[in-house]
């Protein structure tokens, strides 16, 4: 990971945050996907990123996870400026992203999915082989920690429910040392019971000291586990509200386009 030299004179970053993105802009040709978005994520908190389709949520998290490079703006981790050249850089820095439908390969077993790309090996030289005993044991334990009892670790992910698949992906990210966990609409395709399971998982992860970024367009899901709320609308944000500072219907209105903007500015605590 390269750390380019920034002009530090005007930089004020909150050093308590795990990651802070300041005034992120991202242009794709003539399209301005993000027009200056600032968000900070703190350890042990769930930061909900809300927005309607096309609001720029995906572009923003892809910038956070190293898929896109911002056109302008800065990213700080632990108060130090960073620049991610690739998703791998972001991963090495402890940012794990669980994408909605790209999380798992259904044809492969839970263990094979869990360890994909980071398989534990035994043996020597060209005769290294996967340590399946360790891999299976860790997978079973970690899944049990997340409240899911697998029939067997060799069970294909395709036999799991949508919520269980999300949980495998989350457990995997946590096991491999994520400090910041980005969840891209983890609940959008799930039923009621599976949704509550995923929300419970988010709560567990948060309590273990990881900073969670929870992307959703469902206000009720956000209210259930969120500590901070940031609403994106057409590539911009009105700032971040703490839990208790904002009500569900206010969030809903902001997502829908901010008909009641004027009233909301007050409740956002002058952060606009």
């Amino acid at each position: 990971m390269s750390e380019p030299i920034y002009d530090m004179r005007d930089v004020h970053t909150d050093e308590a945050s795990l990651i802070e993105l300041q005034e992120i802009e991202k242009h794709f040709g003539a399209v301005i996907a993000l027009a200056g978005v600032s968000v900070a994520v703190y350890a042990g908190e769930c930061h909900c990123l809300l927005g309607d389709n096309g609001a720029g949520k995906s572009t923003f998290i892809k910038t956070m996870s190293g898929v896109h490079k911002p056109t302008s703006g800065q990213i700080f981790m632990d108060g130090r400026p960073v620049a991610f050249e690739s998703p791998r850089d972001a991963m090495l820095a402890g940012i794990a992203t669980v994408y909605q439908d790209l999380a798992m390969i259904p044809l492969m077993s839970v263990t094979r999915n869990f360890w994909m790309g980071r398989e534990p090996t035994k043996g020597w030289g060209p005769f290294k082989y996967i340590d399946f005993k360790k891999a299976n044991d860790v997978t079973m334990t970690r899944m049990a920690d997340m409240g899911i009892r697998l029939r067997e670790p060799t069970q294909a992910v395709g036999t799991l429910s949508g919520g269980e698949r999300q949980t495998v992906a989350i457990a995997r990210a946590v096991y491999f040392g994520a400090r910041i966990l980005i969840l891209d609409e983890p609940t959008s395709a799930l039923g009621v019971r599976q949704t509550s399971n995923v929300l419970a998982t988010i709560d567990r992860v948060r309590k273990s000291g990881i900073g969670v970024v929870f992307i959703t367009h469902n206000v009720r899901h956000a209210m259930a586990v969120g500590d901070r709320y940031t609403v994106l609308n057409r590539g911009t944000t009105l700032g971040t509200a703490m839990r208790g500072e904002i009500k569900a219907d206010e969030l809903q209105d902001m997502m829908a386009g901010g008909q009641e903007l004027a009233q909301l500015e007050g409740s956002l605590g002058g952060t606009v």
Partner: protein
Amino acid sequence: MADERLKEMSSFRRAMIRPELGAICGTILVFVFFLLVAADTGMFSPEGALNWGIVSAQFAIIAVGACLLMISGEFDLSVGSMIGFAGIVIAIVSVQWGFPVWTGIVLAFAIAIALGALNGWLVIKTGLPSFIVTLAFLYILRGLTIFLSIATTRKTIIGGVKEAAAGDWLAPLFGGKIFNGLFVWLADMGMIETFTRGRRAGEPIVDGIPMLMVWAIVLVIAGHWVLTRTKFGNWIYASGGDAQAARYTGVPVNRVKILMFMLTAFCATVFATCQVMEFGSAAADRGLLKEFEAIICVVIGGALLTGGYGSVVGAALGALIFGVVQQGLFFTGVESSLFRVFLGLILLLAVILNTYIRRMITGER
């Protein structure tokens, strides 16, 4: 949150439900059929077994490459043309130009593997389906093979490789036989038949295991081990299962796929070299339709055409079924056109069974 709706599976059922099950059933079916129909034709004598064993081994060699490539999510339709091309390269270098045979073999492997890498690189760079890219190479390589053969020798069949290979250190690795002593001993003990007349009277009819079979067995075991036991094997599954998901977790998908194209080319060249050494000649039309036969073996073996799922052992059993049926119908004297009917039926049955099994394993609907 154990799901009470999931039925407990008995360990027998669990042992049975595996990707190779369709191929295992097919193999049993085919052997039972020919044991009933062709037991008295010499099909199951040592020389009969050697006959279908060699054909099956040929299929198995190219099926291993095709299988791993298919699991990684790609096809190679240029396998057959690659076989013809590699054979002609060996013959031109060794017979026409008079270099030692080993240089011809080494050169053929080098060119073929480079072509495999080119195939893979083009598929990755252009994002085109490998079906199209390798279809182009099916024509390009076949055309080049005929052109090179005629341009250098004015013929499409180049003989004299056996004479050129005499005393060569590398050629026996493809054209030789092993366990000759064992078979001589078995013949002396009267356990296998010997020639009764002619120059070789007293020698066993089957005097060793051809290297072709050894290659097949080694490739199947190595392929199975790499696929099911190693990190790289997991990457092969992942690349074919969902390339994007694999990339997100850091699997070098492009490298895996290009390496699998190179492996397919390697397997095709092993096939070609063994065949050239066995026949003592190379011909520009060798390997015709082999790409499809390899794919049939792989699919009978339980692999999913779209990648991410399959078994090397299954593909090897597919090759065995293919070889036994092809030669078995010859032994029983059945009209050879019926071979294709039979093969088509087996393909259809195996794929239906495989689809059913796969759904049980992976929860597809």
